[in-house]
C-alpha cells in the first residue's frame, strides 16, 4: 500500500480524498494556490505546499509544478480528484514516468474514453448505441455543413468537456458561428483544449449514468445507476439513486452495456458511463465516459456501502476488487444536492465573498462533503460549488423529506447560495412524482424567483438583539467604553467578523 499520496486538487473533493487516506493510514500532501493558502483542504492534510498563483492555469492545472512537489516530498502516488488535471492523459503519463502511481485509469484508456469523440467511436465498435453527432473536423465550414445534416436544435460540446462548460444549445443556423466561438473560448479557459464537436439534441431526455470499476486482474463491475437529470445550464444540481423510473430490466441491460464497455477497452479503476435515455421509448444512448471519480459519487457509496475513493486507492495499488457483481445491491435511496455560491435572484450567477458562518446539518442519514468552513473566502477563481449535501432515506419519499430537513438546517451566512432554489425543487410536486428529465428546470422552474416576502418580525428582533448582545460582548472585553450604543452605524458587531491579521 502507498505511504504518501499527493492530492492534486482543492475544495471538497480534496477534503474527501484526504479523509479516506487518513482512514487508511496513508500520509497526505495537499497543494494550494495563493488564493487557497488557508483553505480547508490545506488544514487537513499532513503537509501542504503552494504550487502557484490563483489562476488555475498557473497552479492546479500546472502539472509540472505539482509533480515537482510530489517528488520533493517523497510521495509514491497521486490522486487527481475530478476536474483540473484528472482527465489529462499526458499528465497521468508524466506522473507514471516519474515513478509514481496514478490513481486512475491507464493513460491509454483515458485517451480513448476521455475524449468524447474517440469514446463515441469505441462504443460504436462495442455495439453500444451512441447519440448521433459530428466529430470529424474542427473547421467551421465543415461544422456548418454537418449541422445542417444533423438538424437543429443541436449541441456544441467541448471534446475535453464536463460540467456543462463549453456547451451551447443552438436552435438555428444563424446562431452557430457565435456559439462555436463562445464554446471554444470557454473550453480553452476551462480545459486548455478548445476542440469542440456537434451532437444531436434529444428532446427531454433523462440523464442516467453508471458507475463502473475495473481492476488489474480482469475483473469489471458496475455499481448501478445515478439519475442526474436535474440540471441547470447543463450543470447537474440534484442527483439520486436508484433512478425513480429505471425498471429492473432496463437497469440490467444498461449495466451490462456499461461493463461491456469497461471490458472492451481494458479499463482499470473508477469510471462513469453517461447515457441519455428516451423516456418514451426506453432506448438508451451512450453520451460520454468520465475517466475519474465523479462529483456525485457519494450517492453510490450510500446505497452500495462501498467507499469509492478507498477502492480507487486499493485498485491502484494492484489489489483485486473485493466483491463480484452478484454480491452488490442497492439499498435505500440516496439524493445529493450541490450547494453553489450563486444567486438564484440574479440568474444564478456565482456569488463571492467571505463565509461569515457555515453550520452544517448533522444527524442520521445526512452526509455533508464540504470544501469550505466559517471564515473561508469564496473567490472568483474557482468553481462556485462549495459543498454537497447527501441524504440517505428508507425510500425516495423519505430521502426527499430528509433532504428538505437538511437544506433547512444548512446555515451559510455572508455568501448567497442556491439553497432556497434546491428546496423549491425538492419539495415540488413534479420532483416528488419523479418527473425528472434534463429540461426539468426549464419546464418547471424557468421563471422561479426566491421569495421576496419581507422578513418576519422575529428576524428583525434577532438582528436587533444581536446588535445589542454582540455589541456588549465586544465591549465587555475592552475597558469602560462598552456601553451599548443603540443605532450607532459603527456598531462593534461588524468588527467581530471582519477582523483578520497576520494572515498570508
Amino acid at each position: 500500500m502507498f505511504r504518501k499520496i499527493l492530492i492534486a486538487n482543492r475544495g471538497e473533493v480534496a477534503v474527501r480524498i484526504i479523509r479516506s487516506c487518513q482512514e487508511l493510514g496513508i500520509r497526505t500532501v495537499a497543494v494550494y494556490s495563493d488564493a487557497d493558502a488557508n483553505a480547508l483542504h490545506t488544514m487537513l492534510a499532513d503537509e501542504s505546499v503552494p504550487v502557484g498563483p490563483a489562476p488555475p492555469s498557473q497552479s492546479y492545472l500546472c502539472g509540472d509544478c505539482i509533480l515537482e512537489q510530489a517528488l520533493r516530498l517523497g510521495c509514491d502516488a497521486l490522486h487527481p480528484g475530478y476536474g483540473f488535471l484528472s482527465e489529462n492523459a499526458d499528465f497521468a503519463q508524466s506522473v507514471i514516468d516519474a515513478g509514481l502511481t496514478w490513481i486512475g485509469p491507464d493513460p491509454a484508456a483515458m485517451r480513448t474514453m476521455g475524449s468524447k469523440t474517440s469514446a463515441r467511436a469505441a462504443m460504436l465498435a462495442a455495439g453500444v448505441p451512441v447519440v448521433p453527432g459530428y466529430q470529424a473536423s474542427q473547421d467551421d465550414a465543415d461544422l456548418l455543413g454537418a449541422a445542417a445534416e444533423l438538424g437543429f436544435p443541436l449541441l456544441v460540446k467541448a471534446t475535453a468537456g464536463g460540467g456543462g462548460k463549453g456547451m451551447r444549445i443552438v436552435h438555428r443556423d444563424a446562431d452557430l458561428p457565435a456559439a462555436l466561438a463562445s464554446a471554444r473560448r470557454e473550453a480553452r479557459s476551462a480545459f486548455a483544449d478548445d476542440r469542440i464537436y456537434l451532437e444531436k439534441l434529444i428532446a427531454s431526455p433523462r440523464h442516467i449514468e453508471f458507475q463502473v470499476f475495473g481492476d488489474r486482474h480482469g475483473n469489471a463491475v458496475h455499481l448501478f445507476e445515478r439519475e442526474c437529470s436535474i440540471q441547470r445550464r447543463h450543470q447537474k444540481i440534484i442527483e439520486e439513486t436508484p433512478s425513480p423510473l429505471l425498471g429492473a430490466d432496463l437497469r440490467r441491460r444498461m449495466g451490462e452495456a456499461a461493463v461491456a464497455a469497461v471490458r472492451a477497452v481494458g479499463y482499470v479503476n473508477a469510471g462513469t458511463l453517461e447515457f441519455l435515455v428516451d423516456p418514451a421509448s426506453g432506448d438508451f444512448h451512450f453520451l460520454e465516459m468520465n475517466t475519474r471519480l465523479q462529483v456525485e459519487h457519494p450517492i453510490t457509496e450510500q446505497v452500495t456501502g462501498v467507499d469509492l475513493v478507498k477502492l480507487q486507492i486499493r485498485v491502484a495499488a494492484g489489489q483485486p476488487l473485493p466483491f463480484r457483481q452478484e454480491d452488490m445491491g442497492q439499498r435505500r435511496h440516496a439524493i445529493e444536492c450541490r450547494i453553489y455560491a450563486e444567486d438564484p435572484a440574479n440568474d444564478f450567477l456565482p456569488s463571492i465573498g467571505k463565509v461569515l458562518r457555515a453550520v452544517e446539518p448533522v444527524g442520521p442519514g445526512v452526509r455533508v462533503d464540504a470544501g469550505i468552513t466559517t471564515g473561508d473566502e469564496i473567490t472568483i477563481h474557482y468553481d462556485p460549488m462549495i459543498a454537497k449535501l447527501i441524504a440517505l432515506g428508507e425510500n425516495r419519499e423519505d430521502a426527499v423529506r430528509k433532504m428538505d430537513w437538511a437544506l433547512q438546517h444548512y446555515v451559510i451566512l455572508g455568501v448567497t447560495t442556491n439553497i432556497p432554489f434546491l428546496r423549491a425543487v425538492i419539495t415540488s410536486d413534479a420532483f416528488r412524482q419523479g418527473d425528472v428529465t434534463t429540461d426539468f428546470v426549464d419546464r418547471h422552474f424557468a421563471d422561479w424567483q426566491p421569495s421576496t416576502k419581507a422578513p418576519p418580525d422575529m428576524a428583525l428582533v434577532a438582528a436587533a438583539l444581536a446588535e445589542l448582545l454582540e455589541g456588549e460582548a465586544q465591549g465587555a472585553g475592552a475597558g469602560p467604553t462598552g456601553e451599548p450604543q443603540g443605532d450607532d452605524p459603527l456598531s462593534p458587531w461588524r468588527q467581530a467578523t471582519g477582523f483578520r491579521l497576520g494572515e498570508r
Partner: protein
Amino acid sequence: MKSEYTYQVGDEIRTVRVQRNGDGFVVTVGDSIYEVRAQRPEHGRLNLQVGDQRLRAYVASEGQRRYVAMAGKTWELERPKPEQKRRANAAGGPGAGSLESSMPGLVLDVLVSAGDAVERGETLVLLEAMKMELRITAPAGGTVTGVRCKAGDVVDRGQVLVEIASDDG
C-alpha cells in the same frame, strides 16, 4: 435603557425598539410588541424564546449588512447609513438605470456603444468569471447613454458597466 435599530427592507425603513424587562426584553417592531428572552451561547448565535416557541438564530454582519438565519430561512438586512435613511422614502422611480456587474470578473467584450438602442434581453457585455462566460443582458429596452468599461478590464461586483435610459421611463 432603550435601544433603537433601523433596517432597510426593500424600500421600507423598519424600526426595532429594544427595552430590557427583568431577565428578558420587550421588543417593538412597528405596531407589534414581543416579550422575548434571549441568550447568546456563543459568538453569532442567539437562543430566543417567545411564548412556547424557541428559536435558534445565527447572525452575522459585514459592513452595513446583517444576516439572520432562522427557522430554515436566511434573511439579509441592511442597516441604512444616515443619508440613506433620509432619502429612503423618496427613492427615484424607473426611467433611468445603470447596469452593474453582478460579480467580479474580466470583461471579455463590450457589445454596445453610447447611443445604441437595445432590446430587453440583448447582450451588452461579456464577462468571464469562475471559469464561465457570463452575458450581461439589458433588463429592459432603452438607449445606451454611457459605457463605463472596456475589454480587458477587471471589474468588481456592483461596479457600473453600462448606463441605459429606459423606454418606459
